[in-house]
């Protein structure tokens, strides 16, 4: 069984952390992953940096720009991750935009992910329709779970379609916003979390965007299976050494 599906069966609320590969330093990738696992994080999203990340706010864009300047490339990321499964057990997901994957070659990209032991992909600008018509068979061939996003504006009909195509979890965007742009969840969001929970989807949901502390983590996991932290972690890692990651994680749980 895919590591993501296994993890989703555990009887606990999941904490997933996103970081941009190659940031703050080019060769931090593996040590950040090790430290996150050691700190009890349940899943990791490794960000493949892109020059024009449309769905992200300034924090992730700046970390991406810096990572590219540091010399991060798709090839190098795969090289850094080549032996990661010798030491790391938790699910690893690559999150990135579609253009760099296209240039690498989508099939070759998926094959590489499979060799390394990547469990899934999150590609914000690869829409459901394109995935189904052109890429689903490739992803499945290499046992990669494609994680789709839904937002407060997504219709129930489309949520049902996304749920039927998904086979891991659904990434619930907490708010109509790019990443890293808010603080605290209000009534409107809590109602949305509950509304989606009441749909009784076959895939569990993990909430991202706007989670940055213990309070928001608890709010996000009241009705849902887990939460993803991105921008808040990027800000932390920009100002703290890697061996302090445990403190960041402890403050969230």
């Amino acid at each position: 069984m895919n590591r993501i599906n296994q993890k989703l069966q555990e009887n606990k609320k999941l904490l997933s952390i996103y970081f941009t590969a190659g940031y703050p330093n080019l060769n931090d990738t593996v040590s950040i992953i090790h430290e996150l696992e050691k700190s009890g994080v349940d899943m990791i999203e490794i960000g493949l940096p892109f020059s024009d990340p449309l769905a992200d706010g300034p924090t992730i864009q700046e970390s991406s720009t810096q990572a590219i300047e540091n010399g991060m490339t798709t090839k190098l990321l795969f090289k850094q991750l080549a032996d990661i499964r010798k030491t790391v057990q938790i699910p690893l997901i690559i999150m990135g935009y579609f253009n760099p994957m296209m240039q690498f070659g989508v099939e070759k990209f998926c094959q590489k992910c499979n060799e390394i032991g990547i469990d899934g992909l999150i590609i914000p600008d690869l829409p459901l329709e394109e995935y189904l018509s052109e890429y689903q068979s490739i992803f499945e061939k290499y046992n990669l779970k494609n994680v789709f996003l839904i937002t407060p504006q997504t219709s129930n009909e489309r949520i049902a379609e996304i749920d039927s195509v998904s086979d891991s979890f659904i990434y619930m965007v907490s708010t109509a916003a790019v990443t890293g742009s808010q603080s605290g969840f209000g009534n409107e969001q809590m109602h949305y979390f509950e509304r989606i929970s009441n749909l009784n989807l076959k895939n569990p949901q993990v909430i991202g965007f706007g989670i940055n502390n213990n309070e928001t983590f608890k709010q996000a996991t009241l009705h849902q299976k887990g939460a993803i932290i991105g921008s808040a972690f990027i800000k932390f890692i920009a100002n703290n050494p890697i061996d302090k990651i445990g403190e960041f994680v402890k403050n969230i749980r």
Partner: protein
Amino acid sequence: MSQFKVSEKGFYGKFGGAFIPEMLYPNVEELRTQYLSIIAELSFQEEYMYLLEQYVGRPTPLYFAKRLSEKYNTKIYLKREDLCHTGAHKVNNTIGQIILAKRLGKTRIIAETGAGQHGVATATVCALMGLKCIVYMGEIDIERQAPNVARMKMLGAEVRPATSGSKTLKDATNEAIRDWINNPTDTFYIIGSVVGPHPYPDMVAKFQSIISKEIKSQLQTQEGTEYPNYVIACVGGGSNAAGAFYEFLDDEQVGLIAVEAAGHGVDSGESAATSVLGKIGIIHGSRTLLMQTEDGQITEPYSISAGLDYPGVGPLHAHLNDIGRAEFIAITDEDAMKSGLEISKLEGIIPAIETAHAFAVLDKKQFKSTDIVVINLSGRGDKDLNTYINYFNF
């Protein structure tokens, strides 16, 4: 069905589509399912045509350029989009989109701009309709296009600097898209060129197609034929070219020439000639040709003309290039500036530097004395006076 018109799913051959984050899906889907029927409504057409005639000043003349024709020994007509209100063809599109926005019940308008022409055209129609207007513009472009920033402010628009990435047009577009993600219900995004996710490339081409419709009927009056031998237009994203080509796409006897900016030269590393330097990829929600690194990072183009300074090209043009329906020619800064000066002296018309690139084709390509050549004079050069002054040391 024409092989040059967009498919139901939004593709021109292998180019186009809507590669957008899920956050934008409801907005784009609302537009996709409604734009054709709204545009087809009689009341829409009446309002659109009334404003084009009485506010923009259409039809624009198709002027036989006698002295230019003598010099190049061919029959050259100029489609005078420079005479449109606000000084360029851009307003044809913003008029159409603002009426559409109103009919969709939107109250807040956003736009991106590079040199400021589309920003001014958007701020203008927002003032006309009394709608709130926010224009994203790269921080670097704000510095180098101060007069257009002032025009937008006078027209009541808020100009927000794009401070991310390279701080130019592509980043202004990113910021506008982010704004749309953050404001998914009340906001309409007026895109300025035939780029972005479907249905934008088709919608903008349709609003600009008034250019080629008029060329056809005006040529019939003046030459007794609807069909020129060639239509020449400059291409950044490609909206004026899409408009000038649109009605001729299926008439293969009409040669279509798209002129890109070579900057300092196609091989100089400072160029915006996307058809030569671009590879297929995804930019701003569209699968098209774009300038990028081997690793798929979008690179910064260069041209002396801010309006051609875009790392991609509209998917229609990528398709026309791919199947050879249009000939793509790249013109350097130097040749464009020389042509801009030549047209000014020969015909008494100072063209925008974007448009000057189209004129430079006359020195690169031999036309027959009997050929009818229509050049789309997409904009006037007032906004470029500083660049002309600095370049020629007037």
